């Protein structure tokens, strides 16, 4: 067998150790439609049997692969079928009883992942772009309690798509739901586990919005690579006067490497578990760790502070280069695949908000070209429900018109005003409260109804 070159080995180890390259998440997606029983008790038992059966070795196998390949697998997560589909036939048409059933279901999931030492399970949600069923509405109404009574369950609501338009009835309700979720949990942390989507994807490995879509196979491994650290080192080591296209090329080469590593690790974990491999999500996902910031990369590209003029163009360059390098590396690219800008989880974005250089309006502009949307955005607790709904509507419109995924994970923190700080700790970090426009959007939201699908969706 031919052996690798010294330089190849050295560079790989360097990437892992100096640049803190890691696989951000290995996510096991599990279909739960086959677990639907005649009662919530029976369903929960079947869910337990299936999840424990398939996922019991996820953590240990990921650790084994980590040790064998020298690449850290930071998170091991689960995604499951959207809850409203699993529970629809169990509901009794009695709101109180059905909310109780939803909570039992969520608590069972929470319990299971806790036993398996898995930190999050995504999929407690509903898909309502065209309209909401009774079950969808129950799941939505259950969110404040579920998110406060469980630790590891992540939730989502898909309210819009380029094909269906935007469900403004549900968005109006989500303004209230997000407020109630904020009030029901400590420092509004429940809202950090809830994402509202446009053009949601079925194989997103990241939390909080990941779920196992109904178009997927029974079980699948999807991988989220990260690598802001690696890209950051690449950009930092390059000459400051390198042209932007030259910079883009170097970023492409870097993301080629990290995507290859991510795919290899994902495929090996899938093989160990006896499960199919699905896709690699190329997203650059920052963490609170020093050196792991997307904001810093943007500043290294040449901006004094992220959020100033030029930020949108710089992010366009970065996101596009990441995609090009990643798509060359792998035939199985999926998920969200872009750059994340979660404000609280990125030191440089957070600092820019504190300095008032990065505003909500700029974040919104960035979401037109990066993958995720308004993510981990903390706003004053007194913001009106209609304003929250309008912020969501803006983001959904960006996704719908641009035929891309956008999402909102917004956190109105009770008792906090713009400029103040809230700290959640751990992976969630902390955030400066971003101001929102005080001028109201009430009448717009109170009209409800639907924003129709754009003409660009009519391609047949």
């Amino acid at each position, binding site marked *: *067998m031919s*052996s*690798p*070159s*010294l330089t*190849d*080995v*050295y*560079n*790989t*180890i360097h*990437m892992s150790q100096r640049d803190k390259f890691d696989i951000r998440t290995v996510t096991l997606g599990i279909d739960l439609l086959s677990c639907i029983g005649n009662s919530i008790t029976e369903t929960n038992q079947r869910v337990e049997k299936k999840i424990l059966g398939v996922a019991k070795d996820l953590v240990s196998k990921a650790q*084994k692969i980590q*040790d*064998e*390949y*020298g*690449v850290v697998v930071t998170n091991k997560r689960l995604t499951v079928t959207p809850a409203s589909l699993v529970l629809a036939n169990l509901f009794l048409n009695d709101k109180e009883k059905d909310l109780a059933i939803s909570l039992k279901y969520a608590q069972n999931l929470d319990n299971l992942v806790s036993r398996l030492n898995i930190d999050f399970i995504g999929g407690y949600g509903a898909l309502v772009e065209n309209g909401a069923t009774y079950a969808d509405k129950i799941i939505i109404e259950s969110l404040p309690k579920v998110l406060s009574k469980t630790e590891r369950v992540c939730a989502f609501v898909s309210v819009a798509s380029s094909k269906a338009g935007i469900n403004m009835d549900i968005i109006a309700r989500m303004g209230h739901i997000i407020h109630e979720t904020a009030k029901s949990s400590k420092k509004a942390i429940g809202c950090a586990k809830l994402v509202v989507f446009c053009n949601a994807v079925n194989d997103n490995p990241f939390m909080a919005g990941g779920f196992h879509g109904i178009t997927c196979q029974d079980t699948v491994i999807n991988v989220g690579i990260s690598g802001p650290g690696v890209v950051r080192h690449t950009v930092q080591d390059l000459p400051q006067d390198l042209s932007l296209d030259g910079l883009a090329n170097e970023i492409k080469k870097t993301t080629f*490497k990290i995507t*290859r*590593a991510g*795919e*290899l690790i994902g495929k090996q974990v899938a093989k160990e578990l006896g499960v199919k491999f699905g896709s690699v999500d190329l997203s650059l996902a920052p963490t609170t760790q020093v050196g792991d910031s997307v904001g810093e990369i943007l500043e290294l590209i040449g901006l004094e502070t992220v959020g100033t003029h030029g930020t949108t163009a710089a992010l366009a360059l970065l996101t596009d280069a990441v995609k090009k390098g990643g798509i060359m590396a792998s035939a199985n690219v999926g998920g969200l695949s872009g750059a994340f800008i979660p404000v609280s989880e990125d030191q440089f974005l957070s600092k820019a908000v504190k300095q008032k250089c990065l505003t909500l309006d700029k974040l919104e502009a960035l979401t037109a070209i990066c993958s995720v949307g308004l993510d981990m955005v903390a706003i004053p607790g007194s913001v009106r429900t209609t304003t929250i709904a309008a912020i969501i509507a803006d983001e959904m419109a960006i996704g719908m018109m641009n035929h891309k995924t956008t999402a909102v994970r917004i956190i109105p923190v009770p008792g906090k005003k713009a400029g103040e700080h809230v700290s959640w700790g751990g992976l969630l970090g902390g955030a400066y409260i971003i101001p929102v426009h005080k001028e109201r959007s009430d009448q717009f939201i109170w009209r409800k109804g639907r924003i129709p699908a754009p003409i660009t969706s009519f391609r047949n």
Partner: protein
Amino acid sequence: MKKPLTKNDFPVITVIGKDTKGIVAQISNLLWKQGINIEEIKQAIISGNFFMIMTVDMADSSLSFEQLSRELKKLGKKIGVEINLYNQEIFTAINKI
């Protein structure tokens, strides 16, 4: 009957540290005792550090990958260098088009 060879049977040992005499001898001794052959050794000084890779043949060894990895790490601590064992697929995956 010899079992079919896989990439797992030819892992790569990496050694990083200050140049210490006897590194190759000590590692070779450990490998020889475990029935592991050295296929290839490459070494260089990179950024002031001694860097060496050894591709080894584990096909005839009774040690598992994890066991060998642990032994090498222990030896590394004893000698004062960092020794790791890798499945070489990671290097080819990342660096080859």
